[in-house]
Protein backbone atom coordinates (compact mmCIF):
# COMPACT_ATOMS: atom_id res chain seq x y z
CA UNK A 1 0.00 0.00 0.00
CA UNK A 2 2.61 2.64 0.69
CA UNK A 3 3.79 4.58 -2.34
CA UNK A 4 1.10 7.04 -3.05
CA UNK A 5 -0.12 10.46 -3.97
CA UNK A 6 -1.45 13.16 -1.80
CA UNK A 7 1.47 13.39 0.55
CA UNK A 8 0.81 17.06 0.00
CA UNK A 9 -2.71 16.75 1.36
CA UNK A 10 -1.32 17.02 4.86
CA UNK A 11 0.03 18.81 7.39
CA UNK A 12 -1.52 22.01 8.32
CA UNK A 13 -3.45 22.33 11.53
CA UNK A 14 -7.09 21.53 10.94
CA UNK A 15 -9.20 24.24 12.48
CA UNK A 16 -12.91 24.10 13.18
CA UNK A 17 -14.81 26.11 10.61
CA UNK A 18 -18.39 27.30 10.51
CA UNK A 19 -20.48 25.61 7.88
CA UNK A 20 -23.80 27.11 6.84
CA UNK A 21 -26.47 24.85 5.44
CA UNK A 22 -27.51 26.19 2.05
CA UNK A 23 -29.82 23.41 1.02
CA UNK A 24 -30.87 19.88 1.69
CA UNK A 25 -31.93 17.29 -0.84
CA UNK A 26 -33.51 13.85 -0.59
CA UNK A 27 -31.41 11.15 -2.21
CA UNK A 28 -33.35 8.14 -0.93
CA UNK A 29 -35.87 7.69 1.89
CA UNK A 30 -33.01 7.43 4.40
CA UNK A 31 -30.31 9.54 2.80
CA UNK A 32 -30.06 13.28 2.29
CA UNK A 33 -27.43 15.55 0.85
CA UNK A 34 -26.47 18.71 2.71
CA UNK A 35 -25.01 21.54 0.65
CA UNK A 36 -22.77 23.74 2.77
CA UNK A 37 -21.02 27.05 2.47
CA UNK A 38 -17.70 26.84 4.30
CA UNK A 39 -15.82 30.14 4.24
CA UNK A 40 -12.08 29.79 3.57
CA UNK A 41 -12.36 26.07 2.82
CA UNK A 42 -8.77 25.02 1.98
CA UNK A 43 -9.85 22.59 -0.76
CA UNK A 44 -9.94 18.82 -0.78
CA UNK A 45 -9.19 15.76 -2.86
CA UNK A 46 -11.89 13.36 -3.96
CA UNK A 47 -12.24 10.60 -1.36
CA UNK A 48 -11.51 12.72 1.71
CA UNK A 49 -13.84 13.32 4.63
CA UNK A 50 -14.63 15.90 7.29
CA UNK A 51 -15.37 15.80 10.98
CA UNK A 52 -18.64 17.41 11.99
CA UNK A 53 -19.13 18.77 15.52
CA UNK A 54 -22.47 19.67 17.07
CA UNK A 55 -22.78 21.59 20.32
CA UNK A 56 -25.87 21.33 22.55
CA UNK A 57 -27.17 24.16 24.70
CA UNK A 58 -25.60 22.62 27.80
CA UNK A 59 -22.21 22.56 26.09
CA UNK A 60 -22.24 18.84 25.25
CA UNK A 61 -20.51 18.16 21.96
CA UNK A 62 -20.61 15.22 19.57
CA UNK A 63 -18.43 14.56 16.54
CA UNK A 64 -18.76 12.25 13.55
CA UNK A 65 -16.97 11.80 10.25
CA UNK A 66 -18.68 12.17 6.89
CA UNK A 67 -17.29 11.70 3.41
CA UNK A 68 -17.33 14.63 1.05
CA UNK A 69 -19.46 13.91 -2.02
CA UNK A 70 -18.64 17.07 -3.94
CA UNK A 71 -15.60 17.14 -6.21
CA UNK A 72 -12.58 19.35 -5.53
CA UNK A 73 -13.81 21.71 -8.25
CA UNK A 74 -17.09 22.57 -6.50
CA UNK A 75 -17.35 25.76 -4.51
CA UNK A 76 -19.74 24.31 -1.99
CA UNK A 77 -19.17 21.25 0.13
CA UNK A 78 -21.69 18.44 -0.08
CA UNK A 79 -22.09 15.80 2.57
CA UNK A 80 -24.44 12.93 1.91
CA UNK A 81 -25.68 11.54 5.19
CA UNK A 82 -27.54 8.32 5.91
CA UNK A 83 -29.95 8.56 8.83
CA UNK A 84 -29.06 6.02 11.48
CA UNK A 85 -32.32 5.82 13.38
CA UNK A 86 -30.85 5.44 16.87
CA UNK A 87 -27.88 7.64 16.02
CA UNK A 88 -26.94 10.79 17.82
CA UNK A 89 -25.74 13.05 15.02
CA UNK A 90 -27.16 11.84 11.68
CA UNK A 91 -30.88 12.24 12.60
CA UNK A 92 -30.10 15.80 13.60
CA UNK A 93 -28.25 16.55 10.35
CA UNK A 94 -30.90 15.02 8.12
CA UNK A 95 -34.00 15.87 10.15
CA UNK A 96 -33.51 18.98 12.24
CA UNK A 97 -31.14 21.23 10.31
CA UNK A 98 -32.69 24.01 8.27
CA UNK A 99 -31.12 26.22 5.61
CA UNK A 100 -29.26 29.04 7.32
CA UNK A 101 -28.30 26.88 10.31
CA UNK A 102 -24.64 26.84 11.29
CA UNK A 103 -22.53 24.01 12.65
CA UNK A 104 -18.83 23.25 12.82
CA UNK A 105 -16.68 21.07 10.66
CA UNK A 106 -13.01 20.55 10.01
CA UNK A 107 -11.05 18.90 7.28
CA UNK A 108 -10.21 17.70 4.79
CA UNK A 109 -9.10 14.48 6.48
CA UNK A 110 -7.50 11.37 5.02
CA UNK A 111 -4.78 11.47 2.40
CA UNK A 112 -4.74 7.82 1.36
CA UNK A 113 -8.22 6.95 0.12
CA UNK A 114 -8.02 9.63 -2.57
CA UNK A 115 -8.04 9.67 -6.34
CA UNK A 116 -6.98 12.45 -8.58
CA UNK A 117 -7.18 13.02 -12.27
CA UNK A 118 -3.38 12.82 -12.54
CA UNK A 119 -3.36 9.08 -11.83
CA UNK A 120 -3.00 6.94 -14.95
CA UNK A 121 -4.92 3.69 -15.26
CA UNK A 122 -8.54 2.61 -15.01
CA UNK A 123 -10.55 3.54 -11.96
CA UNK A 124 -12.42 0.70 -10.27
CA UNK A 125 -14.96 1.69 -7.65
CA UNK A 126 -16.84 -0.77 -5.49
CA UNK A 127 -19.50 0.61 -3.19
CA UNK A 128 -22.09 -0.62 -0.75
CA UNK A 129 -24.91 1.69 0.35
CA UNK A 130 -23.69 5.09 1.49
CA UNK A 131 -20.14 3.94 0.76
CA UNK A 132 -20.82 5.48 -2.65
CA UNK A 133 -20.27 9.01 -1.29
CA UNK A 134 -16.45 9.35 -1.48
CA UNK A 135 -16.49 7.37 -4.74
CA UNK A 136 -19.01 9.80 -6.19
CA UNK A 137 -16.58 12.63 -5.49
CA UNK A 138 -14.08 10.70 -7.62
CA UNK A 139 -16.55 10.15 -10.48
CA UNK A 140 -17.58 13.80 -10.40
CA UNK A 141 -13.96 14.93 -10.36
CA UNK A 142 -13.21 12.60 -13.25
CA UNK A 143 -16.13 13.93 -15.29
CA UNK A 144 -15.15 17.56 -14.72
CA UNK A 145 -11.43 17.02 -15.24
CA UNK A 146 -11.94 14.97 -18.38
CA UNK A 147 -10.01 11.82 -17.56
CA UNK A 148 -9.43 9.45 -20.44
CA UNK A 149 -9.02 6.14 -18.60
CA UNK A 150 -12.14 4.10 -18.02
CA UNK A 151 -14.11 4.08 -14.80
CA UNK A 152 -16.09 1.14 -13.52
CA UNK A 153 -18.52 1.31 -10.61
CA UNK A 154 -19.94 -1.80 -8.98
CA UNK A 155 -22.60 -0.60 -6.59
CA UNK A 156 -24.56 -2.74 -4.16
CA UNK A 157 -27.85 -1.38 -2.82
CA UNK A 158 -30.79 -2.99 -1.07
CA UNK A 159 -33.30 -1.88 -3.68
CA UNK A 160 -33.63 0.46 -6.65
CA UNK A 161 -35.07 3.13 -4.36
CA UNK A 162 -32.05 2.87 -2.09
CA UNK A 163 -29.60 3.73 -4.88
CA UNK A 164 -28.00 7.01 -3.87
CA UNK A 165 -27.27 9.50 -6.71
CA UNK A 166 -29.19 7.19 -9.05
CA UNK A 167 -30.16 9.71 -11.71
CA UNK A 168 -26.77 11.35 -11.76
CA UNK A 169 -25.01 8.00 -12.07
CA UNK A 170 -27.25 7.03 -14.97
CA UNK A 171 -26.51 10.34 -16.63
CA UNK A 172 -22.74 10.05 -16.12
CA UNK A 173 -22.76 6.60 -17.71
CA UNK A 174 -25.03 7.72 -20.55
CA UNK A 175 -22.90 10.73 -21.41
CA UNK A 176 -19.53 9.00 -21.19
CA UNK A 177 -19.05 5.58 -22.80
CA UNK A 178 -15.88 5.06 -20.76
CA UNK A 179 -17.96 4.98 -17.58
CA UNK A 180 -19.47 1.58 -16.80
CA UNK A 181 -22.08 1.23 -14.12
CA UNK A 182 -23.10 -2.08 -12.60
CA UNK A 183 -25.79 -2.24 -9.97
CA UNK A 184 -26.59 -5.14 -7.76
CA UNK A 185 -29.83 -5.02 -5.77
CA UNK A 186 -29.65 -7.37 -2.83
CA UNK A 187 -33.13 -7.28 -1.25
CA UNK A 188 -35.71 -6.18 -3.77
CA UNK A 189 -35.62 -5.67 -7.52
CA UNK A 190 -37.99 -3.80 -9.81
CA UNK A 191 -40.10 -5.87 -12.20
CA UNK A 192 -38.04 -7.06 -15.12
CA UNK A 193 -34.71 -6.41 -13.41
CA UNK A 194 -31.96 -8.05 -15.45
CA UNK A 195 -29.01 -7.15 -13.29
CA UNK A 196 -27.34 -8.75 -10.31
CA UNK A 197 -29.46 -9.48 -7.27
CA UNK A 198 -26.94 -10.73 -4.75
CA UNK A 199 -24.15 -9.43 -2.59
CA UNK A 200 -20.89 -8.64 -4.34
CA UNK A 201 -18.73 -11.74 -4.59
CA UNK A 202 -15.69 -13.08 -6.38
CA UNK A 203 -17.63 -14.61 -9.27
CA UNK A 204 -19.34 -11.30 -9.93
CA UNK A 205 -16.09 -9.32 -9.90
CA UNK A 206 -14.51 -11.88 -12.26
CA UNK A 207 -17.50 -11.79 -14.64
CA UNK A 208 -17.36 -8.03 -14.75
CA UNK A 209 -13.81 -8.36 -16.01
CA UNK A 210 -11.87 -6.60 -13.29
CA UNK A 211 -8.99 -9.14 -13.37
CA UNK A 212 -8.30 -8.25 -17.01
CA UNK A 213 -7.74 -4.58 -16.29
CA UNK A 214 -4.16 -3.39 -16.47
CA UNK A 215 -2.92 -1.42 -13.46
CA UNK A 216 -6.27 -0.37 -12.03
CA UNK A 217 -6.75 1.97 -9.09
CA UNK A 218 -9.29 0.24 -6.89
CA UNK A 219 -11.33 1.96 -4.18
CA UNK A 220 -13.77 0.00 -2.05
CA UNK A 221 -16.11 1.64 0.43
CA UNK A 222 -19.04 0.23 2.33
CA UNK A 223 -19.98 -1.95 5.27
CA UNK A 224 -17.18 -4.13 6.60
CA UNK A 225 -18.42 -7.48 5.23
CA UNK A 226 -18.71 -6.05 1.70
CA UNK A 227 -15.27 -4.46 1.86
CA UNK A 228 -13.65 -7.58 3.28
CA UNK A 229 -15.28 -9.80 0.66
CA UNK A 230 -14.52 -7.57 -2.31
CA UNK A 231 -10.93 -6.80 -1.29
CA UNK A 232 -10.21 -10.45 -0.59
CA UNK A 233 -11.78 -11.55 -3.88
CA UNK A 234 -9.75 -9.07 -5.90
CA UNK A 235 -6.51 -10.20 -4.27
CA UNK A 236 -7.45 -13.79 -5.09
CA UNK A 237 -8.21 -12.73 -8.66
CA UNK A 238 -4.67 -11.45 -8.97
CA UNK A 239 -5.01 -7.73 -8.33
CA UNK A 240 -1.97 -6.37 -6.50
CA UNK A 241 -3.02 -5.67 -2.89
CA UNK A 242 -1.13 -2.38 -3.06
CA UNK A 243 -3.60 -1.13 -5.68
CA UNK A 244 -6.66 -1.72 -3.48
CA UNK A 245 -7.66 1.01 -1.08
CA UNK A 246 -10.43 0.46 1.39
CA UNK A 247 -12.62 2.52 3.64
CA UNK A 248 -14.99 0.67 5.94
CA UNK A 249 -17.82 1.60 8.19
CA UNK A 250 -19.03 -0.96 10.64
CA UNK A 251 -22.64 -1.42 11.69
CA UNK A 252 -21.50 0.48 14.74
CA UNK A 253 -24.62 2.57 14.99
CA UNK A 254 -22.38 5.51 15.55
CA UNK A 255 -23.46 8.09 13.09
Amino acid at each position, binding site marked *: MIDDPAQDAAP*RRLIWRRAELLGIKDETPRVRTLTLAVPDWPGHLSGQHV*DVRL*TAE*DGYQAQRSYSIGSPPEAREIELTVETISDGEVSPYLTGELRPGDIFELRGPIGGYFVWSNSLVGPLVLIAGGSGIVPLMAMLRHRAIAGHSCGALLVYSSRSWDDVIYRAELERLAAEDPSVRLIHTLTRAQPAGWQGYRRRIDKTMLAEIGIPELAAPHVFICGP*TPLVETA*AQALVELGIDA*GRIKTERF*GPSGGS
Partner: protein
Amino acid sequence: MDEPPISRGFRSRRSSSDQRDRLPPGQYLTTDFPVLSAGPTPSITVANWSFALQLGGSLLGKWNWTEFQSLPQTELRTDIHCVTKWSKFDTNWRGVSFDTLLEAVGLTEAPSGFTMLHCDGGYTTNVPVADLLGGKGMVATHYEGLPLAPSHGGPARMLVPHLYFWKSAKWVRRLRFIEKDEAGFWESLGYHIYGDPWREQRYTGD
Protein backbone atom coordinates in the same frame (compact mmCIF):
# COMPACT_ATOMS: atom_id res chain seq x y z
CA MET B 1 -12.66 29.79 16.74
CA ASP B 2 -14.47 31.55 19.59
CA GLU B 3 -17.75 30.24 21.00
CA PRO B 4 -19.01 27.23 19.05
CA PRO B 5 -22.45 27.76 17.52
CA ILE B 6 -25.23 26.06 19.47
CA SER B 7 -27.21 23.52 17.50
CA ARG B 8 -30.73 24.29 18.58
CA GLY B 9 -32.60 21.15 19.56
CA PHE B 10 -29.48 18.98 19.63
CA ARG B 11 -29.17 16.90 22.81
CA SER B 12 -26.81 14.34 24.23
CA ARG B 13 -28.03 10.79 23.91
CA ARG B 14 -25.48 9.43 26.31
CA SER B 15 -27.14 7.48 29.02
CA SER B 16 -24.82 7.69 31.98
CA SER B 17 -22.18 9.83 33.61
CA ASP B 18 -20.01 6.72 33.80
CA GLN B 19 -19.74 6.96 30.04
CA ARG B 20 -18.80 10.57 30.28
CA ASP B 21 -15.88 9.87 32.61
CA ARG B 22 -14.50 7.04 30.53
CA LEU B 23 -14.98 8.56 27.10
CA PRO B 24 -12.26 10.90 25.83
CA PRO B 25 -13.48 14.14 24.22
CA GLY B 26 -15.31 13.72 20.93
CA GLN B 27 -15.67 9.93 21.30
CA TYR B 28 -18.84 7.83 21.45
CA LEU B 29 -19.35 4.39 22.87
CA THR B 30 -19.87 1.39 20.62
CA THR B 31 -20.43 -2.21 21.60
CA ASP B 32 -19.36 -3.87 18.37
CA PHE B 33 -15.83 -3.80 16.98
CA PRO B 34 -15.60 -1.83 13.73
CA VAL B 35 -12.90 -2.81 11.25
CA LEU B 36 -10.79 -0.07 9.72
CA SER B 37 -7.85 -0.75 7.45
CA ALA B 38 -6.38 1.06 4.49
CA GLY B 39 -6.28 -2.01 2.26
CA PRO B 40 -7.08 -5.70 1.96
CA THR B 41 -6.60 -7.92 4.98
CA PRO B 42 -3.32 -9.82 4.52
CA SER B 43 -3.59 -13.56 4.89
CA ILE B 44 -0.73 -14.75 7.02
CA THR B 45 -0.56 -18.21 8.45
CA VAL B 46 1.13 -18.64 11.79
CA ALA B 47 3.52 -21.06 10.08
CA ASN B 48 4.91 -18.15 8.07
CA TRP B 49 4.75 -15.63 10.88
CA SER B 50 7.65 -14.18 12.79
CA PHE B 51 8.23 -11.17 14.96
CA ALA B 52 11.51 -9.28 15.23
CA LEU B 53 13.02 -6.63 17.47
CA GLN B 54 15.54 -4.45 15.76
CA LEU B 55 17.90 -1.70 16.93
CA GLY B 56 19.09 0.43 14.05
CA GLY B 57 20.30 -2.16 11.53
CA SER B 58 20.95 -4.97 13.99
CA LEU B 59 18.61 -7.72 15.03
CA LEU B 60 18.01 -7.97 18.80
CA GLY B 61 15.73 -10.96 18.64
CA LYS B 62 13.34 -12.87 16.42
CA TRP B 63 10.64 -15.39 17.24
CA ASN B 64 8.55 -17.76 15.19
CA TRP B 65 4.95 -18.42 16.24
CA THR B 66 5.73 -21.34 18.53
CA GLU B 67 8.59 -19.51 20.21
CA PHE B 68 6.46 -16.43 20.63
CA GLN B 69 3.63 -18.41 22.23
CA SER B 70 6.04 -19.91 24.74
CA LEU B 71 7.08 -16.48 26.04
CA PRO B 72 5.39 -15.42 29.29
CA GLN B 73 1.87 -14.27 28.43
CA THR B 74 0.18 -11.12 29.66
CA GLU B 75 -3.53 -10.44 29.90
CA LEU B 76 -4.99 -6.97 29.66
CA ARG B 77 -8.50 -5.60 30.09
CA THR B 78 -8.76 -2.11 28.65
CA ASP B 79 -10.83 0.53 26.90
CA ILE B 80 -9.86 1.34 23.32
CA HIS B 81 -10.35 4.58 21.40
CA CYS B 82 -10.34 4.89 17.60
CA VAL B 83 -9.57 8.24 15.97
CA THR B 84 -12.70 7.74 13.85
CA LYS B 85 -14.55 8.48 17.14
CA TRP B 86 -15.71 5.13 18.44
CA SER B 87 -14.56 3.85 21.79
CA LYS B 88 -15.11 0.41 23.20
CA PHE B 89 -14.97 -0.44 26.89
CA ASP B 90 -13.57 -3.49 28.66
CA THR B 91 -11.87 -5.31 25.82
CA ASN B 92 -9.80 -8.35 26.83
CA TRP B 93 -6.48 -9.17 25.23
CA ARG B 94 -3.68 -11.65 25.63
CA GLY B 95 -0.19 -11.55 24.25
CA VAL B 96 3.39 -10.71 25.12
CA SER B 97 4.19 -7.42 26.78
CA PHE B 98 6.89 -5.14 25.49
CA ASP B 99 8.64 -5.52 28.88
CA THR B 100 8.74 -9.29 28.38
CA LEU B 101 10.19 -8.91 24.90
CA LEU B 102 12.99 -6.70 26.23
CA GLU B 103 13.74 -9.26 28.93
CA ALA B 104 13.70 -12.08 26.41
CA VAL B 105 16.46 -10.43 24.38
CA GLY B 106 18.45 -9.70 27.53
CA LEU B 107 17.97 -5.96 27.74
CA THR B 108 17.87 -4.68 31.30
CA GLU B 109 17.13 -1.20 30.07
CA ALA B 110 15.14 -0.17 27.02
CA PRO B 111 16.87 1.81 24.28
CA SER B 112 15.89 5.47 24.61
CA GLY B 113 13.82 7.28 22.06
CA PHE B 114 11.17 5.89 19.78
CA THR B 115 9.98 2.83 17.96
CA MET B 116 8.72 2.29 14.44
CA LEU B 117 6.32 -0.61 14.04
CA HIS B 118 6.38 -2.38 10.68
CA CYS B 119 3.48 -4.49 9.46
CA ASP B 120 2.44 -6.81 6.67
CA GLY B 121 1.03 -4.70 3.87
CA GLY B 122 3.61 -1.97 4.42
CA TYR B 123 1.84 -0.13 7.23
CA THR B 124 4.03 1.64 9.76
CA THR B 125 3.39 3.67 12.90
CA ASN B 126 5.64 5.38 15.43
CA VAL B 127 5.38 5.12 19.23
CA PRO B 128 7.74 6.49 21.91
CA VAL B 129 9.56 3.77 23.86
CA ALA B 130 8.22 5.19 27.13
CA ASP B 131 4.66 4.53 25.92
CA LEU B 132 5.35 0.81 25.65
CA LEU B 133 7.16 0.25 28.96
CA GLY B 134 5.63 -0.69 32.29
CA GLY B 135 2.87 -2.84 30.82
CA LYS B 136 1.61 -0.09 28.53
CA GLY B 137 2.31 -1.91 25.27
CA MET B 138 2.05 -5.49 24.08
CA VAL B 139 1.97 -7.66 20.99
CA ALA B 140 -1.51 -9.16 21.20
CA THR B 141 -2.39 -12.52 19.71
CA HIS B 142 -5.72 -13.23 21.42
CA TYR B 143 -8.90 -11.21 21.78
CA GLU B 144 -11.68 -12.25 24.18
CA GLY B 145 -10.01 -15.62 24.62
CA LEU B 146 -9.81 -16.45 20.91
CA PRO B 147 -7.01 -16.17 18.38
CA LEU B 148 -7.13 -12.67 16.92
CA ALA B 149 -9.15 -12.56 13.67
CA PRO B 150 -7.25 -11.47 10.53
CA SER B 151 -9.52 -8.46 9.99
CA HIS B 152 -8.63 -7.25 13.49
CA GLY B 153 -4.91 -7.73 12.92
CA GLY B 154 -4.38 -11.45 13.41
CA PRO B 155 -2.21 -13.36 13.92
CA ALA B 156 -0.71 -10.50 15.95
CA ARG B 157 -1.23 -6.80 16.41
CA MET B 158 0.37 -4.16 18.56
CA LEU B 159 -1.72 -2.98 21.48
CA VAL B 160 -1.03 0.47 22.92
CA PRO B 161 -4.49 1.28 24.22
CA HIS B 162 -3.78 4.62 25.87
CA LEU B 163 -3.12 6.09 22.40
CA TYR B 164 -5.59 6.27 19.50
CA PHE B 165 -6.05 2.81 18.09
CA TRP B 166 -4.21 3.37 14.79
CA LYS B 167 -1.05 3.16 16.93
CA SER B 168 -2.08 -0.40 17.81
CA ALA B 169 -0.88 -1.55 14.43
CA LYS B 170 -2.48 -4.63 12.88
CA TRP B 171 -0.38 -7.46 11.43
CA VAL B 172 2.75 -6.24 13.22
CA ARG B 173 5.94 -8.08 12.30
CA ARG B 174 8.82 -5.92 13.38
CA LEU B 175 9.56 -3.32 16.03
CA ARG B 176 12.51 -1.09 15.25
CA PHE B 177 14.10 1.23 17.81
CA ILE B 178 14.95 4.65 16.42
CA GLU B 179 16.65 7.59 18.14
CA LYS B 180 14.62 10.37 16.60
CA ASP B 181 10.89 10.36 16.12
CA GLU B 182 9.68 9.72 12.58
CA ALA B 183 6.20 9.81 11.12
CA GLY B 184 4.62 6.47 10.23
CA PHE B 185 1.94 5.85 7.61
CA TRP B 186 -1.06 7.79 8.95
CA GLU B 187 1.19 10.25 10.75
CA SER B 188 2.60 11.37 7.40
CA LEU B 189 -0.94 11.68 5.99
CA GLY B 190 -2.16 14.30 8.42
CA TYR B 191 -2.71 12.33 11.62
CA HIS B 192 -1.11 13.35 14.91
CA ILE B 193 2.46 12.31 15.59
CA TYR B 194 1.61 11.09 19.15
CA GLY B 195 -2.16 10.54 19.31
CA ASP B 196 -3.34 10.97 22.92
CA PRO B 197 -7.16 10.57 22.98
CA TRP B 198 -7.50 12.50 26.24
CA ARG B 199 -5.87 15.53 24.64
CA GLU B 200 -7.79 14.84 21.44
CA GLN B 201 -4.65 14.68 19.34
CA ARG B 202 -6.34 13.40 16.19
CA TYR B 203 -4.64 15.36 13.44
CA THR B 204 -1.32 17.11 12.87
CA GLY B 205 -0.99 20.07 15.18
CA ASP B 206 -3.96 19.21 17.46
